[in-house]
């Protein structure tokens, strides 16, 4: 037994080894287990293994968090973080009095709502369609084709849209050749922008999002359908009373989790098109922070917007998970 002192899941080790079957004795041994010095020496290599990831996260995750203090400074590159003058809440006062900021704020909510409402039903409908197909190969093929754009970059997706429906794109050219004098350029049409970005999102992500719903559909017992059919329920009533209730849990969960990202979604998608469509339609809070901070070189102002965004998003995500838990779902984390 002496050699097993260094073993983590042996009788002398700490708790949490349910898989090892150690059970209660190990749990009880947790407090009386080896001292932290022994455990530190024993687990030295495990800790060393986590160091590369930890260092990367400290440098590129935590250091920028500390850098957020610049939101309370009038930061300039010559003085750096340590010697830039402190201005208190001046940046935030300016931010909350800035019409461009409030425009970005409301536009974020507008684009998010329209995208969510138009996008969300599509993967569900696609999943129901796929699930009803008797041919396994057709189903697999359809699924592969629709999920493919998920792996495309936003630059690629927007380029493809531009070449298909943009001013000189395939469809406007076709219309021109068939007698339509001035087809609308949907890529630069400001009022239609919210629908354009929704279409792009659907094209890129609907197929991929179908997979989750297909898994939920596979979990519905076929005997439910059979019993309903025997009782005379047609396709619509079976869908209405068996399929949709079977998808309710996952739908609510995904909706809630999506709400957590209401303020930070679609950054690249909007930024790429901001030039063509103008900030009036495409500006969201994330692009506002980037453009005012980096492009215009007003670092502190951009960081103030970034801090506002980070804090509100954190609150949203935590709240979304709370709601998910209230529905009896796990959310991003348990409890």
């Amino acid at each position: 037994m002496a050699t097993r002192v260094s073993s983590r899941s042996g009788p002398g080790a700490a708790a949490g080894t349910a898989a090892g079957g150690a059970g209660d004795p190990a749990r009880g041994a947790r407090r009386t287990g080896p001292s932290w010095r022994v455990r530190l020496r024993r687990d030295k290599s495990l800790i060393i293994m986590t160091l590369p990831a930890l260092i990367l996260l400290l440098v590129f995750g935590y250091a920028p968090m500390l850098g957020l203090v610049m939101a309370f400074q009038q930061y300039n590159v010559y003085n750096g973080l340590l010697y830039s003058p402190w201005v208190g809440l001046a940046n935030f006062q300016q931010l909350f009095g800035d019409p461009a900021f409030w425009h970005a704020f409301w536009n974020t909510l507008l684009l998010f709502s329209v995208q969510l409402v138009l996008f969300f039903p599509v993967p569900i409908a696609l999943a129901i369609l796929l699930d009803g197909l008797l041919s396994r190969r057709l189903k697999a093929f359809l699924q592969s084709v629709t999920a493919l754009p998920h792996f495309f970059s936003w630059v690629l997706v927007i380029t493809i849209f531009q070449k298909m429906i943009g001013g000189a794109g395939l469809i406007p050219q076709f219309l021109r050749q068939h007698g339509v004098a001035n087809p609308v350029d949907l890529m630069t049409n400001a009022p239609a922008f919210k629908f354009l970005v929704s279409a792009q999102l659907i094209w890129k992500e609907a197929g991929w999002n179908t997979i989750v719903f297909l898994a939920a559909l596979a979990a519905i017992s076929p005997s439910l359908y059979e019993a309903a059919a025997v009782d005379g329920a047609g396709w619509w009533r079976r869908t209405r009373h068996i399929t949709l209730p079977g998808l309710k849990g996952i739908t609510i969960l995904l909706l809630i989790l999506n709400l957590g990202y209401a303020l930070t979604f679609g950054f690249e998608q909007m930024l790429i098109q901001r030039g063509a469509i103008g900030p009036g339609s495409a500006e969201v809070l994330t692009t506002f922070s980037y453009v005012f901070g980096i492009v215009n070189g007003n670092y502190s102002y951009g960081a103030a917007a970034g801090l506002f965004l980070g804090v509100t998003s954190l609150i949203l995500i935590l709240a979304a998970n709370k709601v998910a838990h209230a529905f009896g779902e796990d959310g991003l984390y348990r409890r």
Partner: protein
Amino acid sequence: MTSISTRTLHAALGTAPRPVWQERPKPGTQAAKGGGIAVILALVLVPLYAVTLTSFSTQASINIAGGLVLWPHGLTANAYTLIFTGGVVGRALLISLLITVAGTAFSMVVTVLAAYGLSRPGSFGHRTILLIMLITMFFNGGVIPLFLVVSALGGYDQYWALILPSAVSVFNILVMRAFFSNIAAELIESARIDGASDWVILWRIVLPSSKAVTAVIALFYAVGYWNSWFNILLFMPADSSKWPLQMVMYNYVTEGMSFAGSGVTNVGANLGRQQIAPLSLQMAVVVLTVVPILVVYPFVQKHFTKGVLLGAVKG
């Protein structure tokens, strides 16, 4: 005769027999469903087809079509010849491939090590380290402080700035950690009694028994590196000779910047290829960004469901 041909058709499509309780759909419903499927397929495949065909089209053919080509009137691979004989696109392709390979390798080493380091139950400090990592999933400093940190470290215009800041995904670490935790503890324990260190256990036992998840995570990282664009805009906006493919596509295709002076058209002029259409060249760039994805796609696809449903993993 009809019944035989339907049967072969069903066999070819891998069709399951219709459950006895399910009514036969009416011809109208059937047609609507078929039409719907055709439209869905066309929405994805027609753009890809048009883009590919245009990249192989002569200028004459593009002129007839007035833009993207749906029906070929003359094919040529000149756009690709141009790209592969030098200039900004060929170089960008190479840069993108190198960043993707190097970045994925680096990310995998970091992720696998961290995942195993955190996967042994009861190990010293693993909860604290996990918490430190988890916090970054919920809150970050945003773009501007990150830009200043990377600049302060001398990363502006450096390739490492396109790899290191996004090299580690905490989510991927959690996914791998969950898999590693499920490997039979007896297996690891017996190796330890035989005197194997954690490094040996990871390399000889844990990794060989988690090939599938390792492949999936590696492919997700690779797609991430291949597709990344904003990092380039942030850290390498000015020097077009250093751009990876996504940035070249953004500037020369999406934004319609002229290729003049970028080396591409000069090469064309030297070769005397008057047939080269800017549009076919643009579409060739698009095709080149899609091809690597199509190459790895079948491998990702096998693990589709696993990959998506990994979201259920807990910290």
